[in-house]
């Protein structure tokens, strides 16, 4: 059972990394393109508010981060601090929840 969980986490991290590779590239390219002529807060909100495609893209981005980062951190904590077992997994589940909450809060703040 433990082996299965570890393998599922491994697959989840690889899959989320693949999603992030696309998201980060699109994110950076959009920033560079969008700010070329200067950009005000009002202009940004004008583009993001009510934009369903934008919401879907950044919601995907946030979910991928919330999956990817805690799994990576789990390995770092195990290897560098020797912290393993249920307490580590519980702490990282909380970390994932915080990432998801903060990320979605930011996304919704500029969508609504």
């Amino acid at each position, binding site marked *: 059972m*433990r*082996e299965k969980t570890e393998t599922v986490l491994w697959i989840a991290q690889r899959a989320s990394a693949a999603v992030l590779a696309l998201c980060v590239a699109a994110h950076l390219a959009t920033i560079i393109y969008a700010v070329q002529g200067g950009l005000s807060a009002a202009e940004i909100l004008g583009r993001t508010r009510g934009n369903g495609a934008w919401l879907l893209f950044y919601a995907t981005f946030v979910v991928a981060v919330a999956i990817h980062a805690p799994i990576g951190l789990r390995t770092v904590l195990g290897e560098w601090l020797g912290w393993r077992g249920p307490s580590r997994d519980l702490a990282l589940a909380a970390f994932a929840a915080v990432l998801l909450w903060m990320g979605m809060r930011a996304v919704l703040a500029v969508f609504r």
Partner: protein
Amino acid sequence: MQEFEVPRHPSQTVLDVVTYIQRHLDPTLAYRFACRVGMCGSCAMTVNGVPRWTCRTHVDKVIRNDRMEISPLKNLPVIRDLVTDMREFFDKWHRAEGEFSGAKSRRDEFEKVVPQSENRKMADAGIECIGCGVCYAACDVVAWNPDYLGPAALNRAWTLVKDVRDEKTLERLRAVAGDAGCHSCHTHMSCTERCPKHISPTAGIAGLKREVAKLVLQGKF
């Protein structure tokens, strides 16, 4: 750390240096060797921070400013001087289900193994391992996670997974999955870089990751 002055000779190996020290300078020096020609894998030590077979390492290739630092292999308990305890290293081969397990007896026909088949080619790429422990000493993950099976044991498991005669694939993949197994490998490739037999345990470990992932996705795990 002890310092010794050893005379240089043409084609002198690091093992020659260690042997000279034991025979002429410090008879208490403990070290391990057998064949002296790169077949047995027992003389591996750390030379200037790098794990190597001392019998196949020329002093000319590794000496810096006429100095050389020789220490026991890393990631293994030291028994004395340059001799390490290899028990844990080989116990991990066992934990990785490293024994061949065939279904046929000597009364059955020989299994036909096609040398050009993809499975056989992948197994052949890893079967020349002689268990010297160089990859294990070079591996960062072994240093960070003492339960990690290590490159040699995982390479052994991979060659058996790719052996069409072997019957224990599922048990073996279960044994090598998880935190102590293939999924802990960070693909640093130190094992591949250092293997004196030019085997790539990293490639085998990547293969194990794929095979295990396939089983999990198919719900067979």
